[in-house]
């Protein structure tokens, strides 16, 4: 793979005596759709937190878009083009949907555009993003007035507002019905078609298979498989990890 957008090398993280990640290597190319799967406690969210700067890795390094990310705060990584959504939606509860979308426009968009957006540009972008995820009618509502699926959509739209090169969607479909899962998968594919590279962390295999061009499997903090979805689901170690030996 020539010049990957994201390159994680030998990443390690411990919580006291518990080894959460050990020697994880991962490369993601520009424009790729990667699924990251693994049983509960396998270290998926820890890996995302280390990549995004929410947690600091003890060993290894994260390279993104040709730059070393180690030591950079989470907001600085966002400024460089790495955005994420959270496993449990974390909206700004006292701000409206439109204001939620406005935050990355105020704090991140200028780092990419080279100037601060005008109020009109910002409002137009908020409207466009809210429309993209089907929340235009609820732009002036508070997050408490949204349904679960709308909350997930708000998470994704807010991450997209940062105009990212890479979007990491951490279990964006947990707790949703089948039709809602399909909606989110379609949304993620639309975002990818707009040029955003996406890593999707998910338990719902139907969604993972529909979305991913490549699958990476983590088990007890180690990467055990990396390949096309068809290759990975037939991998003996993956079958062992999911179904038991």
């Amino acid at each position, binding site marked *: 793979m020539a010049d990957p957008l994201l390159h994680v090398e030998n990443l390690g993280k411990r919580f006291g005596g518990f080894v959460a990640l050990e020697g994880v290597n991962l490369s993601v190319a520009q424009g790729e759709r990667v699924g990251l799967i693994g049983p509960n406690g396998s270290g998926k969210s820890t890996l995302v937190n280390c990549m995004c*700067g929410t947690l600091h890795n003890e060993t290894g390094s994260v390279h993104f878009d040709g730059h070393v990310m180690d030591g950079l705060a*989470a*907001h600085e990584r966002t400024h460089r083009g790495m955005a994420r959504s*959270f496993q449990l939606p974390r909206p700004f509860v*006292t701000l409206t949907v439109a204001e939620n979308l406005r*935050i990355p426009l105020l*704090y991140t968009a200028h780092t990419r555009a080279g100037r601060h957006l005008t109020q009109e540009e910002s409002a137009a972008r908020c409207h466009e993003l809210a429309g993209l995820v089907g929340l235009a009618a609820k732009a002036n509502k508070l997050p408490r007035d949204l349904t679960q699926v709308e909350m997930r959509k708000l998470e994704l739209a807010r991450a997209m507002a*940062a105009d990212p090169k890479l979007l990491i969607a951490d279990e964006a479909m947990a707790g949703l019905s089948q039709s809602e899962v399909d909606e989110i998968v379609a949304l993620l594919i639309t975002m990818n078609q707009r040029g955003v590279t996406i890593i999707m962390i998910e338990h719902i295999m139907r969604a993972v298979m529909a979305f991913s061009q490549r699958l990476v499997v983590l088990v007890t903090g180690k990467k055990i498989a990396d390949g096309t979805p068809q290759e990975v689901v037939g991998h003996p170690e993956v079958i062992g990890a999911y179904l038991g030996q």
Partner: protein
Amino acid sequence: MRSLYFYLTSILVAAAFFMFARWLGNDYLFFAGYTVLQFIVLATAWNILGGYCGYVNFGSAAFFALGAYSSVAVHKLAAGIDRYFPESLTGLAHAVLPLPIPVLIVIAGIVSGLVGFGTGYLTLRLRGAFFAIATLALAVVLQTLIVNWDFVGGSRGAYIIRPSDVPIIGSYIQYLFLVMLVLSIVAIATARLIEQSRLGYGFATIRDDEIAAEACGVPTLRLKLVATTISGALMGMAGAPFPYYIGYLEPSSAFGLSYAVNSIAMPMIGGTTSWVGPLVGAILLGTLQQVATVTISSAVNLLIVGLLLIGFVIAAPRGVVGLVQDFMRKGSAPTNTPTWRSRLAAFANMRPGAR
């Protein structure tokens, strides 16, 4: 245009109040009004960190006292120019000192702002109760330092003999009242400016969810430093004229519990997410306390604050602003046509999420 209306309204209301008080010709009105205005500045300053960012500061009295003691220190320097300055500088010192109150306010703002910055830097990683305890500790540490600093009077306190009158205005208390009136407008304008700006949105994200804020690109640590500095500076500015108001300053009065309690209770009762909240809370509680002082006793002041705070926490946790906001939302039209209610909400910058 909204800002122009705001400044014009503020200046007109302030001028009208000042002229009314002068017309009544009762100096007590200026004494009592000064205290209420001082609480408006303190409550507004507290709200910048506590209300907008969600960081509860129990050390308001420390910043207030720091401002007051900055003035005392400069006053002492002015009183002993020959003793404290080298001979080559005495001529210059005699020409400059004593400094007028507005300059003392600026000095107090710088000193308290720097201490606010330091406090913010040392407590960057602390949240919730831990941050509140750290600010409480700051007040104890600063009080101990002042008690042991003989230059500003130490534990025995310092006397400040103020001039009996000033040119043009006349009575000195009227001058102090006018200075505090201007400072209140400055504090409220600062809070309002922050609220409507990129900074205000950043503060709101810190209050709501710091991890999500970082993920959106908000530099939370830097913004917290900005908030602690602005809040500390304004509290210190409120304290700068205090020695001239009270005439005799001692540590227990400058670091009094009432400053810490009032600067928290007033925004909580008024509402914490709009600049209107601390203003309403300070006018309501400050006036009630002044009335209680002359009709019952000043000892009942903190009881009033406590009872009202309990009442509001139970019945209206979003304060007076929250009650008004609910009323306005109920009456708002489903269309986007502006109504007098929506215009009032826009003027007060009351966000729908305010709590």
